[in-house]
């Protein structure tokens, strides 16, 4: 089973997780920029974070043969903090990077006027940089949040086929199914979605434009729930091809719209030595 996790916050995960993910079949992932639990207080804090998403994390993932990509944005929660707003001006330089395959996570947290403004401005950036957009839907007041997000997407003029609405569930999938947007589902141990519930949604709504992710982060979450969902699909009678579509071909198709998805085997040895000579550095070895 080859797996592309289209939404996972590896910054918050250990190197052991990379090892377990690789063993479970994860070959590629997208790490969206988001909040970190502890609120940030200055744009410089964001640049260090964004730099790690296009520097250190891809290197760390590469040690385990996993291709790492990122989405970059000012997240909705911190868009409300005037100290963080200047981050919007820093985004264009990151949206030019090879590993950045979408603008995200954008959208709503508490549906404030500040969030409205940041959401619309960043959808415009996605259009200007010819990138897809990853839209986080709010955890509170979710159904109205999804409706309002869809309205903002429509107003922006972005092609809905280049937008994914994430963290959907049984209620909100109905609002988004016929909009032309992609539909994202985050599989969590207790909240959001579970593998059996996800299987029911796939039975009812099919596999087209469906993205399944672990959204694993610093909270109670599990980077292997993509694999568990694939297994639950097989148990429920879906074919290997169905599983491959949901867990690999769909995310490749969605993020491939950026033109920047690079799924070649990681080659860290590059020009300085025979292949593999120093791919096995101290991360794999646990330090010297």
């Amino acid at each position, binding site marked *: 089973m080859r797996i592309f996790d289209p939404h996972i916050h590896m910054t918050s995960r250990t190197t052991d997780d990379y090892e377990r993910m690789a063993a479970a079949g994860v070959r590629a992932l997208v790490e969206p920029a988001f909040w970190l639990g502890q609120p940030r207080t200055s744009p410089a804090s964001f640049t260090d974070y964004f730099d790690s998403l296009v*520097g250190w994390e*891809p*290197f760390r993932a590469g040690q385990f043969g996993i291709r790492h990509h990122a989405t970059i944005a000012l997240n909705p929660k911190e868009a409300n903090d005037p100290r963080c707003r200047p981050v919007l001006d820093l985004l264009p330089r990151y949206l030019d*990077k090879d590993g950045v395959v979408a603008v995200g996570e954008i959208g709503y947290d508490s549906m404030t006027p500040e969030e409205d403004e940041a959401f619309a401005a960043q959808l415009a950036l996605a259009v200007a940089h010819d990138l897809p957009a990853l839209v986080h839907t709010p955890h509170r007041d979710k159904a109205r949040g999804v409706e309002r997000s869809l309205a903002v997407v429509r107003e922006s003029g972005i092609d809905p086929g280049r937008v994914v609405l994430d963290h959907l569930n049984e209620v909100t999938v109905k609002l988004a199914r016929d909009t032309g947007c992609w539909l994202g589902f985050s599989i969590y141990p207790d909240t959001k979605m579970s593998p059996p519930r996800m299987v029911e949604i796939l039975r009812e709504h099919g596999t087209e434009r469906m993205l399944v992710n672990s959204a694993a982060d610093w909270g109670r979450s599990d980077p292997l729930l993509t694999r568990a969902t694939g297994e639950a699909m097989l148990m429920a009678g879906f074919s290997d091809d169905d599983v491959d579509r949901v867990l690999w071909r769909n995310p490749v198709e969605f993020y491939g719209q950026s033109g920047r998805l690079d799924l070649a085997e990681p080659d860290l040895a*590059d*020009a*300085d030595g025979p292949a593999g*000579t120093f791919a096995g550095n*101290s991360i794999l070895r646990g330090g010297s």
Partner: protein
Amino acid sequence: MTPEHLRTALRGVPDPDWLDTALRQVADEPATITRFFPAAGRRCGRAALPDAPGWTADEAARALLLATLPGDHARYADTLYRQGDAAEKRAVLKALPLLPIGPDAVPLLHDAIRTNDTRLLAAALGPYARHLDAAAWRQAVLKCVFTGVPLAVVADLDARADGELAAMLTGLADERHAAGRTMPADATDLLDRLTAGSGRPTAAREA
């Protein structure tokens, strides 16, 4: 390696017109380099260049963009390194020996050597590392051994390696052996060369 050599080696990249245009624009309007630089991998590819051993297409294209600047090389190298992703940082490091900047970019080497990204560490130890002082250079070489970077990436290795580096390598070898672990063969070979004739046969000590 010279910019002219890289230019020749880059004939046959997927989008040669893009590179021609980018080089012309950077010569005329230097500030445009900040948009061309990140795009070079997508436009020129990332494959190793057969006619420029040790260079990939994206590195060579980025080095050429830097070398084409009419001036301010050190300032642009600093900005592009600090605002770059890992591949851009690596390209800046590899370009440094081709630029008329003297020792001005040494802080970038220190930054690269501080990271745990072995690709950056390796790129920091090319010919431009002649500007590193002895203490920093020895620590960087030791870090290569420690993190498994082959010593073949280190420019002027035998000319610069000294007794102090030998002492540091011996200390690492002692720790490794005490832990039942081995040293990379290229480090053991270097240590043998450094201690040959000094009356300290390291091979016997390591047995």
